[in-house]
């Protein structure tokens, strides 16, 4: 053991590979380990147990809270139950009912639009503001706090405020639109306008998160790279597209994925502002499932929608996760 170098001697077992990773020099002594391993096996086991018990509480919590709902969703989606009873086994009838329902496809379409606008809208705004802050606006830490507020404030508050601003013909924004000669604009009564309003609201709520992610990524870009680019005669646009964007690409990709998940699963932003209306125009899949269960009491169908979403999200997340990790190794 004494010959196996500092890293191996101090931290065998679970964390051995980390220290090896941190200190490439430790690699040379690895072949000598097996003999030493036997002597320290009780220590290895003890450290394994320590690591396991450190992570155990969170595993128990995560598994307990998620396992039952997943099991329940799997069972209920093939039964015609209500909130209180399981009901009869109906096979795949619920899924057939969903996949042939135009309402389902309309919600799926709106979910897609909402997610695409939510992700790229909030990213564009967040990126622009983060670039400005990085360029050194006076009082940037104050602006940073103020610009975070839409994300920080409870969604109930912002939805209340937005609905006060746009909901009825006598609200300030419709009044303003009328004064400017647009006639009577009903933001939440016209299907298309309601969709636009909900998407704008989502961008307003989410851009600070993107600004934070982008700021952190920009922070890690070396200023010397910019100086070198300027010496080579690159203009601002070239610097932005050739240097800034590629250097923050991976972090950008991760923030898109996270935001896409947030958008697909977002319930309060839509429900508190429009309730999914008018005529279901702003009903996303999550709102659709919620209404099936809590308004129409069709638990089986509602849960089946959720089940489809969950399966889809699990598949997509696993693929994306693998991709992020692979990119991390390169």
């Amino acid at each position, binding site marked *: 053991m004494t010959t196996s170098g500092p890293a191996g001697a*101090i931290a065998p077992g*679970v*964390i051995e*590979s980390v*220290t090896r*990773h*941190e200190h490439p020099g430790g690699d040379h002594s690895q072949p000598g380990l097996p003999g030493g391993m036997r002597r320290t096996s009780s220590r290895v086991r003890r450290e394994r147990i320590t*690591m396991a018990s450190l992570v155990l*509480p969170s*595993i128990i*919590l995560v598994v307990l809270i*998620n396992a*039952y*709902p997943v099991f*329940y969703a799997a069972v209920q989606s093939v039964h015609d139950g209500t909130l209180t009873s399981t009901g009869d086994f109906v096979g795949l009838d619920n899924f057939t009912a969903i996949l042939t329902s135009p309402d389902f496809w309309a919600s799926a379409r709106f979910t897609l639009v909402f997610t695409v606008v939510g992700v790229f809208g909030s990213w564009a705004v967040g990126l622009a503001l983060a*670039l*400005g802050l*990085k*360029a*050194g*606006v*006076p009082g*940037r*830490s104050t*602006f*940073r*706090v*103020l*610009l975070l*507020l*839409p994300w*920080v*404030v*409870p*969604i*109930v*508050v912002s939805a209340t*405020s937005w609905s*006060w601003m746009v909901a009825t013909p006598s609200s300030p924004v419709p009044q303003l639109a009328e004064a400017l000669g647009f006639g009577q604009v009903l933001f939440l009564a016209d299907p298309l306008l309601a969709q636009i309003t909900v998407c704008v609201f989502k961008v*307003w709520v989410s851009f600070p998160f993107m600004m934070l*992610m982008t*700021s952190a990524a920009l922070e890690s870009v070396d200023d010397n790279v*910019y100086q070198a680019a*300027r010496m080579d005669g690159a203009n*601002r646009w070239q610097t932005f597209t050739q240097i800034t964007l590629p250097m923050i690409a991976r972090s950008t990709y991760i923030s898109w994925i996270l935001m896409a998940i947030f958008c*697909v*699963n977002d*319930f*309060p932003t839509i429900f508190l502002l429009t309730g999914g209306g008018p005529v279901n125009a702003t009903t996303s899949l*999550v709102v659709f*499932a919620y209404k099936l269960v809590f308004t129409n009491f069709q638990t089986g169908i509602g*849960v089946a929608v*959720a089940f489809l*979403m*969950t399966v889809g*999200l699990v598949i*997509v*997340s*696993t693929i994306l996760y693998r991709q992020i*990790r692979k990119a991390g190794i390169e």
Partner: protein
Amino acid sequence: MSTTTRTSTSAPTGGGQLAVRPDRRSSARWWGLALYVVVTAVVLIPLISVFVLALRPRQGSGLTGYTLETITYVLTQTQSIIWLENSMLVALATTVVAVVVAAPAGYVLSRGRSRAVSGYSLLLFIVQGFPVVVFVIPLFILFARLDLVDTPGGLIIIYVASSMSVACWMMAAYFDSIPVTLEEAAWIDGCSLFGGFVRVILRNSLPGVLSTAIFTFLVAWNDYLVAVVFLRSTINYTLPVGLQTFFQQNATDWGPVMATAVIMMLPPIIVFAALNKYFSVGGIGGSLAGR
């Protein structure tokens, strides 16, 4: 990790984009300032309106101009103060439990490199993508059997669990920034793995802990969906649910609604104004990518 502590490091190099000659640069800075003032003001209009409306007198109170009367009314004549207490209790308990559970888990995610650890990391990512809306139904049925419906305890369990993925990533991201050599020194001195974690790592992780604490506080403080399903009696409501009932009762009188909204907004605003420099979500990217 720290995105704001270095406030003006970019000044000498001008952030690489604005600097050409000193005079042109300073005028560009003032234009930048003006632009940010306008943008920030526009962005904050909805929140400013809430404050302004909360300072207007209630209908039929006979007062004019701006007054704190509506806020006093809401705090003394309605149940808002009880809801405020409930919200505080739930949010603070969630914060403490989540940090206590997530910090050791984040340490394992940061330092461990076994197959089991990457498996758990993937599980956290998948779980993060589950739609909460749907989980609320089975959890309600489960918690009804356990007598956890309509209690702060039930809410706290769900909030801790639903913030667990991000909380673990945030802690792991911070631990990643602490060199392993620090623990190694402690191990040489005879410290155990656990001792090294508590005495060396945790001690040096205040910003990471604060970041995670702020995040989980926000999750619990801002939640509407779980609370509206799980809380049945008005006396147990948290502020977001309370505000909704209020709103239904007084659909036309916006004063008390907005006054309650102000009460609800203040804690997160105060937390951010005070602790802004510690808060960072940027590390999540690195920890997800398994640096």
